[in-house]
């Protein structure tokens, strides 16, 4: 296994996805960027880790490489109204926002991740030797059908492209979750962010880093 303390930078390409807003109910709105909690979940899935607390303390910095386009479709949503599973009232059509052409970079720093090996080390190892990874399910971001097309370590030639960093800002208009509680939402935690103007600066600033931690 390669052990290095350098942050790892990954380039991720997702053709279609919806990052459903935490408070969206009947109209499934999407965040314009993948939230830190969603990306953390995807990284755990990539290395086949089922315990989401395992790498708490890891730090993520996210930046968009593309300008995703937003569309609205109508689709069937499932809900629990009647015990009989195929009761027609358990399904209803509703609108959902979709993003297409999502390309982003995520930098992963071990931070206070005390697990051995740390998440960036496991990721680096998985990307170098995919055959050693025991994992399951299509690698996705958002819903399970929203498959990721590719995940690769950032190469020097990628660095010619401008990118938009997501920076923490207490007056920012984007409130994104960095930890999600799936049973109720008492433990869900958000931070406020601002999506910066496109720049060629590939080094994340201090405000770009978000520490993943449970409540």
């Amino acid at each position, binding site marked *: 296994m390669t052990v290095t303390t350098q942050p790892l930078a990954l380039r991720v390409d997702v053709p279609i996805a919806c990052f459903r807003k935490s408070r969206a109910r009947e109209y499934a709105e999407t965040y314009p960027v993948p939230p830190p909690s969603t990306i953390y979940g995807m990284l755990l899935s990539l290395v086949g880790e089922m315990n989401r607390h395992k790498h708490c303390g890891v730090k993520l910095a996210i930046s968009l490489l593309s300008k995703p386009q937003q569309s609205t479709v109508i689709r069937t949503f499932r809900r629990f109204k009647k015990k009989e599973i195929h009761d027609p009232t358990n399904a209803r059509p509703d609108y959902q926002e979709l993003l297409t052409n999502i390309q982003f970079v995520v930098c992963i720093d071990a931070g206070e991740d005390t697990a051995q090996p740390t998440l960036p080390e496991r990721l680096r190892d998985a990307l170098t030797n995919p055959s050693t990874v025991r994992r399951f399910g*299509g690698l996705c971001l958002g819903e399970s059908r929203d498959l990721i097309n590719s995940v690769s370590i950032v190469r020097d030639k990628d660095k010619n492209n401008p990118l938009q960093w997501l920076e923490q800002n207490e007056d920012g208009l984007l409130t994104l979750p960095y930890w999600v509680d799936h049973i109720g939402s008492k433990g869900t935690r958000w931070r406020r962010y601002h999506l910066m103007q496109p720049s060629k600066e590939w080094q994340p600033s201090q405000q770009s880093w978000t520490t993943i931690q449970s409540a």
Partner: protein
Amino acid sequence: MTFHLFGNILTSYGTAANNRGENEGNITTLQKILWQNEVRTTVSAEAIRWALRYYWQTAGNNYRVNRQWNDEKNDNVWQNSNFDDSAFIDDDVLGFMRAEGAKTEASDEPKAKGKKAPKGTTTAKRGVLEVTRAVSTIPYAGDITFNAASGQKGRTSLYGTEVHGTRYQYGFALTPDRLKEKSRIIAVLDGLTSLGEVGGNHSRFLYDFSPDSIILRWTHDFSPRILYAFEEDEAGNISVPELLRRIEDEDIDPTELWVAGAIAKTEEGDQLEECGVNILGGIKKLVEQLKRTIARDLELSKEELG
């Protein structure tokens, strides 16, 4: 050591209409999304998964399907509402979920000391097969047909329908280790390469989704790198520039790729072959070859191979 099967399927050219869109006045619309700065029509993953289940139900291959479609009632009928992923292929491959909410809201009731808050229960299995949304290969130009309902005419008999003459492409991913019976990967391949009826008039029953060209990847890699790889130019020529670039960049090992159909007979097909891709004109023949490789890697018996 985990094997994954990824695929990208391109359908034949056909006329799609009424793909589960909403109505606007008396115009039946198509579902549309923005794709590479253009408006494309789209078919949901659920419609494709529905068709796969219907294929298993009607294929006459001893597949046992839990959620069966009743053509007379126009509705689904469950064989076992508690689900059984050993007995039923659709429960195993496509997953299920049965959720029951808590009888009282946890936050409303003051919790007695030592008593746990009421909770709901879930019986669920994540679908092993993931299918992506299908996207048209060319933009929607706005074609509409003008129709009249048959029989007695009334004030709602006249209607319009958006129609798109196009091909669609969609992807899928499957990790056979997660199947209760690994050999069901063969039934998934058979189903997806024979899929007849997905989108189209009356929701699901007209547009032919059998592949005209197919790219499959049998690999340890966790991301497919082949999704939406087909491109169509204004003259209707199909190409795979992104796939060739990824092979050139050594992001994909060409020997993991299995390509068949119309794309095999093009110049790019020749280039793929030179790179070492497994390529054939006949989709069924190529899939048979891939099945043998899968059976070897997963140590399936001859009977399981079917």
